[in-house]
């Protein structure tokens, strides 16, 4: 709630309270200060009134001096009437000289009897002459002077009637005390004396002068506010007043006043200077001061408040900015951590799961999920995390479902639903707690491939900062997803390549040992990677002999597999022509040297030829580990001392053969260096010593298979859980004493031709003799992975060979179609598209014909009899029909080991009996394929 009140209002409230407090303090201070000020005011009034009294006394003193000085003049002292004019002139001059015209009404010379002699001004002098002089001297003065004229009379101020007379006695030339009387304008005197004080009177100030008779002599204001007549001032009291005092009294208008009384004696007469002011004047002074103080205080407070407000706002702004910056830093740091976390793996599912884990750290959610588009355009839940039931974690949303998520993908922009219950795009599952939702696009190469769902159980559960952060997060997630997908694709591509390579290799290696009565063979090869560099071959030769080969191509993976394929093809080709192992190796080295040098690889190869008729084994070695053997069960194991450089390592190498005479029960172990160099966790090789010990510990009647297993188990035990560092291949040969089987008649071979002929009786075929079939041929052997499309490789190879042999374009087209169809059948049916298998295509050319054999693994046998073509719903089944129709000879051999389709076309033989209108066709110009 407090958060809702603006901080400026709080500041305003604070200022108001502060000012109120200041006002209260000011009032309190005013009461105290007012009291003090009143006392000071009263004291000040007393001082002023005293000063006025003193000032008045000084004035009269000066006036007295002036009058005294005048009386000292001879003209004044003279009593002769002839001197009166001079006296009056002297008076006139003195009045003028002292500037007393305004206060002196008249100056009259009296005789000691009190008779006026003359006067100034003329108006008064005339009154004397006319006998109408207006006043007389006080009786007490005249009586004293008449009795002897020697009484000392002092200058005094007297009131006669309403006149104030300053009477100055002096000794006339006659010796008598006579008088000079100054009639004073008393009001004018006080006006003059108190002029500055009157000017200073302010507000309610009043200044009066009373004489001790209680008569108001002078008032500074025209309308006195004090009713003197009502005895507000007691003349009696005034008469007893001898010192300056003050008195507070109330007036009729409820105000209170202060009167300062200052007694003053003017010559022999008592007066009182009264200065009266309202106490409010003092309060006004205080109030004014306090108002100023209060105003200053308020201004200061206001200024402080404004400054405080500015400072507060700055602090708030700075705090907000720092919070925002801190928040941004946290967000940036979080995103950085998220980026690191997301990119720490490239495995797709791991990345997807991690996205949701990391998301929770920066945007707490009720639940979250990732939907990815599948190939059918459906949105599939790829990962899910949160409080939802398990039902939400799996599922597929069809095109018409998940409208909100669809919108995210269509717009490639985030979509926010703040209240899922009111948004028609949202279709909640029953019991769903989701009240608000953000959908963010996941993009791979600018294409939306999925949606990151962030669910909240609160309405409007996401702040703008959350949304902004979520967008940044989704970008990070998209990058991780993109990397993972690329990685996935790359892995898939590599796996596919390796699968192809493995298919090639598998097709090269014998799957099962051949059935040789005199020789039992057991072998196994463990690849360090998916594709091994080790290889072995068992090749049947004429006269019942068998070629036995174990090799090791330098390197591993796809390059080694390809070299192995080359090696195998060359080996199969050369062994037909050269049966001596030493010469065979020399020939292979000569044939493959350039290629090996080109790819900077080489291959070790141990070649042996076993003659079942004699139990002799001719053996030669090109860089392989020397094999071990024992001639019979009683003999010790020994290595065959034969060696040489690997193939491709050097030019002009002559390998020599060694002939071993085996007996029934002899064992021979051939192996690659991966066996000897197999390391345990301490880095120790399995080594020759362990192998020899193992061999020597074998029982006398150990079979080839058992020997193989013992060796592999021992090596496996040695390396433990470690992956083999190198390929490991072992082959064990064991001679068996059996009766020699009858050698096959060479004349049986053409029966295949006869069989084909019998099936195609409707078309004439040429008959080849056995000799013709045994003519020297050029062989090309292909190994196709069992993937539809690779039949084109065989098709192209057949075309190249046929073209080289001089076949016509039409016949080449026939051949291409037949080869492609045979390969397709082998891939699709014979190998059931098992990528681990391969289809072998052997193209053998001779001077007048080309023979193509397509061999599969026999997963599905070719039906016998062949079904009629085009009989299925999909109009399939034309392949064998084409093969039979287009080729000159076709032989199909079905066996559990595999189907063999053998096709032959002959040079100089045109298929003109197929019903094709060749005459019309000649008129068309065919496009070039």
């Amino acid at each position, binding site marked *: 709630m407090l958060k809702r009140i603006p901080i400026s209002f709080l500041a305003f409230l604070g200022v108001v309270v502060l000012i109120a407090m200041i006002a209260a303090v000011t009032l309190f201070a005013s009461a105290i200060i007012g009291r003090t000020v009143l006392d000071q005011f009263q004291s000040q009034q007393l001082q002023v009134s005293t000063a006025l009294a003193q000032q008045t006394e000084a004035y009269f003193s000066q006036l007295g001096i002036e009058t005294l000085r005048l009386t000292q003049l001879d003209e004044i002292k003279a009593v002769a009437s002839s001197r009166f004019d001079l006296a009056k002139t002297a008076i006139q001059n003195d009045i003028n000289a002292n500037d007393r015209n305004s206060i002196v009404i008249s100056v009259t010379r009296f005789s000691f009897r009190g008779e006026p002699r003359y006067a100034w001004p003329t108006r008064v002098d005339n009154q004397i002459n006319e006998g109408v002089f207006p006043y007389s001297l006080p009786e007490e003065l005249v009586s004293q002077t008449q009795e002897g004229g020697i009484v000392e009379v002092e200058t005094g101020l007297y009131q006669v009637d309403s006149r104030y007379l300053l009477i100055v006695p002096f000794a006339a030339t006659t010796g008598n005390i006579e008088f000079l009387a100054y009639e004073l304008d008393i009001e004018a005197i006080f006006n003059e004396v108190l002029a500055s004080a009157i000017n200073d009177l302010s507000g309610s100030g009043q200044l009066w002068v009373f004489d001790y008779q209680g008569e108001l002599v002078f008032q500074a204001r025209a309308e006195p506010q004090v009713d003197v007549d009502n005895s507000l001032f007691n003349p009696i009291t005034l008469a007893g007043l001898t010192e300056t005092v003050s008195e507070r009294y109330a007036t009729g208008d409820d105000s209170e006043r202060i009167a300062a009384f200052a007694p003053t004696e003017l010559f022999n007469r008592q007066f009182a200077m009264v200065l009266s002011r309202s106490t409010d004047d003092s309060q006004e002074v205080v109030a004014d001061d306090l108002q100023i103080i209060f105003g200053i205080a308020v201004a200061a407070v206001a200024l402080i408040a404004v400054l405080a407000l500015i400072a507060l706002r700055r602090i708030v702004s700075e705090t907000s900015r720092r919070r925002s910056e801190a928040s941004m830093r946290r967000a940036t740091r979080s995103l950085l951590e998220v980026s690191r976390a997301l990119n720490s793996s490239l495995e797709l599912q791991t990345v997807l799961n991690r996205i949701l884990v990391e998301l929770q750290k920066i945007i707490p959610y009720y639940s979250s999920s990732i939907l990815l588009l599948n190939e059918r355009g459906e949105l599939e839940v790829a990962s899910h995390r949160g409080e939802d039931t398990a039902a939400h974690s799996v599922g597929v949303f069809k095109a018409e479902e998940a409208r909100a998520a669809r919108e995210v993908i269509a717009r490639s922009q985030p979509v926010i639903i703040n209240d899922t219950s009111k948004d028609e795009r949202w279709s909640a599952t029953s019991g769903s707690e989701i009240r608000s939702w953000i959908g963010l696009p996941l993009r791979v190469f600018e294409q939306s491939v999925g949606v990151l769902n962030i669910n909240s159980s609160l309405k409007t559960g996401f702040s703008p900062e959350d949304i902004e952060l979520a967008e940044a997060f989704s970008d990070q997630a998209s990058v991780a997803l993109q990397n993972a997908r690329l990685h996935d694709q790359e892995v898939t591509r590599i796996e596919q390549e390796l699968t192809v390579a493995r298919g090639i290799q598998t097709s090269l290696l014998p799957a099962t040992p051949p059935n040789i009565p005199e020789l039992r063979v057991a072998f196994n090869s463990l690849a360090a990677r998916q594709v091994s560099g080790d290889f072995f071959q068992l090749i049947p030769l004429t006269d019942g002999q068998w070629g036995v080969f174990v090799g090791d191509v330098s390197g591993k993976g796809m390059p080694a597999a390809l070299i192995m394929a080359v090696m195998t093809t060359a080996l199969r080709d050369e062994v037909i022509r050269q049966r001596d192992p030493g010469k065979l190796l020399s020939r292979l080295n000569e044939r493959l040297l350039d290629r090996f040098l080109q790819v900077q690889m080489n291959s070790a190869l141990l070649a042996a030829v076993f003659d079942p008729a004699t139990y002799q084994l001719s053996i030669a070695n090109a860089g392989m580990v020397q094999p071990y053997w024992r001639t019979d069960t009683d003999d010790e194991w020994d290595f065959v001392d034969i060696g040489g450089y690997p193939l491709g390592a050097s030019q002009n190498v002559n390998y020599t053969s060694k002939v071993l005479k085996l007996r029934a029960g002899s064992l021979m172990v051939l192996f690659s260096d991966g066996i000897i160099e197999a390391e345990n966790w301490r880095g120790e090789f399995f080594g020759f010593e362990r192998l020899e010990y193992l061999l020597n510990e074998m029982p006398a009647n150990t079979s080839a298979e058992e020997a193989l297993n013992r060796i592999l188990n021992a090596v496996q035990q040695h390396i433990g859980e470690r992956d083999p560092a190198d390929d490991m291949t072992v082959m064990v040969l064991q001679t068996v004493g059996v009766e020699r089987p009858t050698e096959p008649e060479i004349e049986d071979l053409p029966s295949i031709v006869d069989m084909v002929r019998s099936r195609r009786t409707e078309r004439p075929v040429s008959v080849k003799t056995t000799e013709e079939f045994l003519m020297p041929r050029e062989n090309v052997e292909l190994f196709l992975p069992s993937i539809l499309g690779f039949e084109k490789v065989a098709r192209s190879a057949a075309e190249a060979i046929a073209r080289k042999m001089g076949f016509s374009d*039409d016949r080449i*087209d026939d051949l291409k179609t037949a080869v492609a*169809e045979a390969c*397709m059948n082998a891939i699709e049916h014979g190998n059931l598209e098992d990528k681990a298998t391969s289809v072998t295509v052997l193209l053998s050319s001779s001077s007048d014909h080309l023979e193509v054999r397509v061999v599969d693994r026999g997963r599905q046998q070719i039906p016998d009899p062949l079904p009629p073509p085009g009989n299925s719903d999909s109009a399939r089944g034309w*392949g064998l029909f084409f093969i039979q129709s287009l080729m000159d000879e076709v032989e199909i051999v079905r066996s559990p080991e595999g189907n063999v389709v053998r096709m032959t076309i002959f040079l100089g033989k045109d298929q003109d009996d*197929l019903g*094709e209108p060749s005459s019309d066709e000649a008129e068309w110009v065919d496009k070039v*394929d």
Partner: protein
Amino acid sequence: MASKEVSYRLENSLGFLDFPRDVIAQTRESAYAAYNQLAVNKVETIAMNFEGSDYLNSAGIGLVISLVEDATRAGRKVFAYGLSSHYRKLFSMVGLTERLSLVRNEEAMREQMGTSSSSTDSDSSGGGGSTSSGGSNPSSGGNS
């Protein structure tokens, strides 16, 4: 990169099926989709264009057979052009030439359509393609 799918074109009552470079089993789906579009638009004649094709395997030829059979059952006339002599031979071997007219190119087909429509409307099998100018129709008449 060449398309792997069959596309179609409409020209009034004439519909073209443009076959891709490889006519194989995987072509089936797009071929049927294209053919259905032509059927929806009630074309009377279908022209199968193989000018962009250089490999038809048995599955591809089986696909053509299926399309031709459906078209002829619906009373549509079918032409095929752009085939090499080898594939014309294969079409003949499987009996396709009995159901469609093989012509060298589109121009020849249009010529034959004009001749055919003016000569006979009853030859719904499409096999009655008599040679028009220059004897450019090499196949269907002689094989059917």
